[in-house]
């Protein structure tokens, strides 16, 4: 088991090392960076959907909080970007915990409704508080600096984000194999049964939700600094749906499925550029098709076919 996991991680590292040398120009490097950022958000979201069996329809809202914390605090209040990123993560974590605690005491999928509402409120707030956020037009973001050095250029960003991704994959694998991860899988299987054997269901669900929200917030900050610009579209409902689609396509409850889903769906809009106007239809059809014909997603289905677990 342990050995197989490491092979997966080594493959990820090998691919990440190769990309800068096979990417013909900065367009592809930029695409790779976006894929890696999405992969990290999806890793967090997949922990929630795949392992805790709960869906968040407002994850882009958390992304938006992180992105705007990194845009607003350094610009208007002269905060250091790292401090701003931390503040965004903290606000997101507190907000997620505040919302999740009462919701998870209820049966059924009320989290979908609560996160949906929360995401829309965040988006509307970002659009309306124009004196801070630039309103619907968005605002520029100051560059990130580490130890007095500014990070700029695709190459620098690529290595930083690649390192983050490797760490995120490794951490997710460990989390899933830890007692915490086992408890999560148990409560996805049967909530009542896991309660009987002593799993504090509410606490575990709240922690995984907060964790995935904080993941999204930090990646929102990273995206904001990388692109150098934020707009309310970061936090809109459709973006939340895109993230859920990545989880579904790659495979729920699969670490490498998250990566595959993020890579495929980040590339999809580029591939669809020739089908101007049909993007929404294709996205919807993919969602429905996967849920009906391949509900486990690509990676778990392939893994089952070739007779080895992940």
């Amino acid at each position, binding site marked *: 088991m342990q050995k197989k996991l490491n092979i997966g991680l080594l493959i990820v590292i090998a691919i990440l090392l190769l990309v800068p040398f096979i990417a013909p120009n900065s367009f592809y490097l930029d695409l790779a960076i976006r894929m890696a950022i999405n992969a990290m958000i999806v890793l967090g979201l997949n922990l929630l959907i795949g392992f805790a069996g709960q869906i968040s329809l407002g994850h882009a809202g958390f992304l938006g909080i992180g992105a705007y914390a990194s845009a607003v605090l350094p610009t208007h209040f002269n905060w250091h970007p790292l401090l701003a990123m931390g503040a965004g993560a903290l606000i997101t974590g507190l907000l997620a915990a505040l919302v999740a605690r009462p919701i998870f005491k209820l049966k059924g*999928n009320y989290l979908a409704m609560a996160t949906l509402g929360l995401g829309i409120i965040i988006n509307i707030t970002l659009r309306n508080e124009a004196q801070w956020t630039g309103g619907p037009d968005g605002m520029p973001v100051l560059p990130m600096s580490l130890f007095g050095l500014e990070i700029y250029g695709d190459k620098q960003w690529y290595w930083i984000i690649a390192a983050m991704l490797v760490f995120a994959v490794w951490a997710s694998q460990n989390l899933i194999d830890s007692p915490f991860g086992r408890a999560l899988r148990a409560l996805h299987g049967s909530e009542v049964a896991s309660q009987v054997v002593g799993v504090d269901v509410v606490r575990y669900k709240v922690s995984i939700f907060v964790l995935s929200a904080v993941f999204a917030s930090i990646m929102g900050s990273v995206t904001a600094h990388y692109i150098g610009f934020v707009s309310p579209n970061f936090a809109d409902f459709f973006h939340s749906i895109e993230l859920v689609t990545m989880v579904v396509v790659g495979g729920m409850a699969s670490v490498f499925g998250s990566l595959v889903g993020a890579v495929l769906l980040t590339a999809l809009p580029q591939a669809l550029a020739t089908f101007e106007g049909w993007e929404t239809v294709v996205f919807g059809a993919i969602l429905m098709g996967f849920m009906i014909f391949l509900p486990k997603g690509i990676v778990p289905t392939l893994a089952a076919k070739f007779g080895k677990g992940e």
Partner: protein
Amino acid sequence: MLAQFLQFLFSGLTVGATYALAALGFTLIYNASNVINFAQGEFIMLGGMLAVFFTVSGFPLPVALVLAILLPAVVGVLLEKLAIEPVKGAETVTLIIITIGASLVIRGLVQVWLGKSTFALPAFSGEEPIQILGATLMPQSLWVFGVTAVVVAVLWYFFNRTLSGKAMLATSFNRTAAELVGINTSWVLFMSFAMAAALGALGGILIAPITMTSYDVGIMLGLKGFVAAVVGGLGNGLGAVVGGLLVGILEAMGAGYISSAYKDAMPFILIIFILFFMPRGLFGGKSTDRV
């Protein structure tokens, strides 16, 4: 002061009636299948857009309106047959994602077909506003109130006085028991989707002359209808109607007295409060566990 209050009340009730119809659609489908149909908003959009399309194509208004209700009903049935029935018994997350996918497909197709412009449907009976205690009421609002009231009465009669309606109710209480007494539950599922889609489309048609319509109005209208259904206690028909009106009034009052910029946020703030303090909604029954 009173005039202003009445003005907000009228506009709240008008849009609230649409939410109520959408919420009834959510309720019907939820009761028949436990599916939260995130494509409900697209039926509202389809109603308005098709009504515009058929009137512009030269059909007389009544014919255009009937077509604009029937076609979405067919779409609803297709959704049920092609996407919901094949995954019977799937997890809630799966079903939510399928209906979200369906909503994207419907919205995308309409966008490709009719474009991204905003359309207005002519009011059914003139644009001459009616003065009531200093507030103005559009004749179209009367259509909205009247038709919604008739629909609610018909639905009440259907569910309480006809065998088909009682069969649908029985299925929502206990599917297995309903099947055992000989109710065709797949017919019930079929009917629920057809009726839900038709109700949504009707709401979309009624409101189109007041708020205009475009390919993307379904998202917000649907989500607010959904909030209304939850406020009323998901699965409760009367609750859905009251919830719809309440959400509409709250939104109009909030926009008028607090902040019009945050108008669209009001229903969602409401739903978070409801989930916190009254998780079963205003009219929801006691919760039961299925293990």
